[in-house]
């Protein structure tokens, strides 16, 4: 594959950023490509090791023994908490960010990061040169957070173009790369090519860390159907304003999801209950076969579409263009009807 070759060439040239982008392109097309995943990991590690701060820690800092070790090994919650206790908020925040980059859904880490930033804002930072974060960068849902990150990435890339120096990475660059290499995969390159962006890799509820494969609770779904299902969801989740979309059985068990992954089980259960009660009501009222339910609330929308024995659930913010969403859903439903 051309991207694979390009990635290897850029790796040899030590242009890890471009290599990462090439490998990510491959993974967008084939997320299960183990070899490319390994290459991407290597590229990220090399990019991170190049970017590691060279300056030694100050004498009064209690973790001197760590300074010769790579950043990855020092990135632990304990050390971050030590930094927090001593008022080195920036360092603590940095470590929490790194840990969150590896595990974006970890609520405990988010909470700790939130606390660290709050304390930084209240008490001030020991290291004034370090960058300060806004709280909403991690308290927002991943898609919103991602927008913020991408906006920053755009600004930074503009600055790089202006300065003509694209050979150095900032910490934020590395974190973005690591995030993009993780679950919340959004490729800036793709955004340039087409307006829709695949915000995240599909998540199988039964095995979140395992490669996507048909879960046990969807015996009727073949691997091919499952892959196609993921494709339809990926396409749908590219629509601006969609927070998450998932497919669940009529029993409320989620099968596959795309986008923000927290509370999927609860969402699927409650929303499927709404759909089922509506279906019964519509049937009793002799109003035909239920096709779609749209719940509009103050902050967002829940859209439910029936196909075969499943329900497509879409959670969108209140800025979404409902007309476009319905259009996209019509298209998705047609595809899903063909699939099942």
């Amino acid at each position: 594959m051309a991207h694979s070759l390009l990635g290897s060439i850029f790796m040899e040239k030590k242009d890890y950023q471009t290599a990462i982008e090439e490998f990510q392109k491959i993974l967008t097309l084939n997320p299960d490509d183990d070899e490319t995943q390994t290459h991407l990991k290597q590229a990220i590690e090399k990019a991170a090791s190049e970017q590691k701060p060279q300056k030694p820690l100050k004498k009064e800092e209690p973790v001197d023994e760590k300074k010769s070790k790579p950043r990855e090994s020092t990135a632990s919650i304990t050390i971050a908490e030590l930094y927090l206790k001593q008022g080195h908020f920036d360092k603590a925040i940095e470590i929490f960010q790194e840990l969150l980059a590896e595990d974006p859904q970890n609520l405990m880490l988010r909470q700790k990061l939130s606390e660290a930033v709050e304390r930084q804002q209240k008490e001030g930072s020991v290291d004034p040169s370090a960058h300060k974060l806004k709280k909403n960068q991690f308290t927002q849902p991943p898609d919103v957070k991602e927008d913020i990150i991408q906006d920053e990435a755009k600004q930074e890339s503009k600055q790089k173009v202006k300065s003509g120096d694209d050979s150095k990475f900032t910490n934020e660059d590395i974190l973005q790369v690591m995030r993009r290499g993780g679950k919340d995969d959004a490729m800036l390159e793709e955004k340039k090519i087409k307006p829709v962006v695949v915000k995240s890799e599909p998540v199988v509820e039964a095995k979140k860390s395992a490669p996507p494969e048909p879960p046990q609770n969807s015996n009727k779904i073949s691997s091919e159907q499952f892959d196609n299902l993921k494709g339809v969801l990926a396409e749908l989740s590219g629509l601006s304003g969609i927070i998450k979309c998932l497919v669940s059985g009529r029993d409320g068990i989620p099968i596959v999801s795309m986008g923000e992954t927290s509370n999927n089980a609860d969402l699927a259960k409650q929303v499927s209950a709404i759909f089922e009660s509506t279906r019964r009501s519509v049937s009793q009222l002799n109003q035909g076969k239920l096709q779609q339910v749209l719940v509009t609330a103050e902050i967002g929308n829940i859209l439910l579409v029936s196909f075969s024995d499943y329900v497509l659930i879409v959670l969108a913010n209140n800025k979404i263009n409902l007309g476009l969403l319905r259009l996209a859903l019509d298209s998705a439903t047609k595809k899903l009807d063909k699939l099942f």
Partner: protein
Amino acid sequence: MDFKKILEETLSNVEGAIGAGLVGMDGIVIDQISHNASFDINAVGAEYSSILKNAMRASSNFGLGNTAEILITTDKATMIMMMVGQNYFVTLAINLEGNLGRGRLELKKAIPKFEKELT
């Protein structure tokens, strides 16, 4: 209280409208108007008030705030329900050839009128 007048006005402004009604969250119909015998607003009120309650619970649980509207599409018609204050909702049924956008707009226009009548 001229609820029927507001409902009639709404219905006449929406192409393809089948019927409309003002219903309490307890499922009791306050007033209604129908152009189609198959659209029984009394039954609709009872059934849809429980759907609204479930939707309100779900919206609240998922941090989406208060439910403002529910749109139900079937292969025969589309039903729009919009909250009127905290304790009532107005519903409008439109056939498949009807103007759904107009329906939503007219209902939004009718809500302040209902609210004024109800206070």
